[in-house]
């Protein structure tokens, strides 16, 4: 573990576990050390796991449409916890309807996320971005 450690979880009152399993599997297969904190995770759960595990990225999943509410203040809490440099991704059903993706993406970037993924994104794309953002590409 160390420079390839990432924290993965489903935020808020969301219990959708399937996507999380798939991401967990794909990330591990790609050589990442995954700290999977599971469904129904609070912002604090992500932060505590990231501190203890020394993770370099937090990957947030949300499917039930309340991600915006669940992620408000997350960036600020990370700053408080001394994790202001951690990489922050989010993906899933990020807004009910999601009519205009650009708007959704902008909103979540404002909330502090470095990358925002729409539904039907394949794990390979996330892995590629992670490797690039963490400087793991040869």
């Amino acid at each position: 573990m160390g420079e390839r450690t990432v924290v993965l979880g489903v935020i808020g009152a969301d219990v959708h576990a399937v996507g999380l399993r798939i991401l967990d599997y794909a990330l591990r297969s790609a050589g990442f050390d995954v700290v999977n904190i599971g469904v129904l995770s609070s912002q604090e759960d992500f932060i505590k796991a990231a501190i203890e595990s020394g993770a370099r990225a937090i990957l947030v999943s949300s499917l039930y449409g309340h991600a915006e509410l669940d992620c408000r203040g997350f960036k600020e809490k990370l700053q408080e916890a001394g994790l202001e440099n951690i990489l922050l991704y989010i993906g899933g059903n990020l807004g009910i309807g999601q009519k205009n993706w650009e708007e959704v993406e902008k909103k979540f970037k404002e909330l502090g996320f470095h990358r925002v993924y729409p539904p039907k994104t394949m794990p390979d794309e996330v892995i590629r971005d992670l490797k690039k953002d963490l400087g793991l590409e040869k």
Partner: protein
Amino acid sequence: MKAIIFDIGSTFTKGVAFDLDRDEIIGKAKYPSTVNEDVTIGIQNVISEIERQTGLNIRDFNIKKATSSAAGGLKIIAIGLVPDLTSEAAKKASLGAGGKVLKTYSYELTNSDLDEIVLLKPDIIILAGGTDGGNRYYPITNAKKLSNLPLNIPFIYAGNKDLQDEIKNIFLSKGKEIYITENVMPEYGVINIEKVQNIIREVFLRNIIHAKGLDKVQELIDGIVMPTPLAVLKGLENFSEIYGESLLIDVGGATTDVCSVAKGDPTQSNVILKGLREPYVKRSVEGDLGVRVSALSLFDAAKKDIIKSFSQDKVKLIEEKVKFLSINTSYIPKNDEDLHLDAVLAYFAVKIATERHVGHIELVYTPMGTLLFQYGKDLRELDKVVCTGGPLIYNPYRLESLKGVIYSNDEPFILKPKNPTFYVDNEYIMFAIGVISEIYKDKALRLVEKYINKI
């Protein structure tokens, strides 16, 4: 085969003699502890009394072992990173090893933390922090700070495995004694305390007994084998081997101990486990709940309930009595009123200590419906409770006190046992059973069957 098992406590040195061939207690004695002058005086007096009772000579006893909670017990400071993760794991490990946790620290130690640590005079410091491969900064920084303290005590490192060599060198370069062991939390949320507990016991045997001047007992007996609370915990493990999952409550003058040997898995559907997993064998100690030295803090903790349950005059009376007991700490109840008051205090000690030990359920309202989060152990189905300690062994009103263990519909989310059967350690030998079980398992089990009785 004969055995004498001693408990060198802070107030009394006790001894129980057994005829192990007949699974029988053949003698019992106690004498005020003489740890401050010479620990052997107390032991010698107990031996003399038991020799008188049994007509045997001390040389006739094949097993002569002791446990100790003297000289303040085994005082541990636990340091971790995040309060409810590695700090909590380090604390749980220390308690389960029979230690007395003076204080728990988290994140980076400040100068005032360090000053406080020196003043607290711990016997051992446990440093944890980071999962394996995880955080490096905090364990290293804290190790550097701790290694500079003017403390000549053993340190145990049970944090991020990657730092083991580095941490070892930090302490060794300052001439400190350092033990390295497995991480208390190797992965996020996974608690691993057995290895560090073994090291704590090893350090206790190798250093602490000597440091406290207790090794002098070896002139008279084989030696001290473990801290008393650990022996009691082992006693309960033996009880559980016969009767299944169980809980033990030990109410004392200064503290109330609660131990459980139980998984505590959810007993209802739709429950989601949250927080750090609890160890199967768990011990918690409440330093503010006791019926003598800690009577005042017990009164404070129970004040709301006491006011609810008694008339104004009675509350005043209780408060007066509590003040008296907290000063006259060796007071033995003289009349029915005294006994009744002791039982009331014990009830609240039992109630609050059990509430703090067991898990609880939190209701969470979500768009997906109502969810139940369970933190800690669900002991509602657990059906065996063992009680020990003066107020629960000798008080005729103890069954009233023990009601504090039982689940209440008024507090439906506190996961206490619903319908337990109570057992009592009438002869006060739980610690001795723990010691004997390490030598003759089968004999220890037979002593449980014979002497730990259903109320």
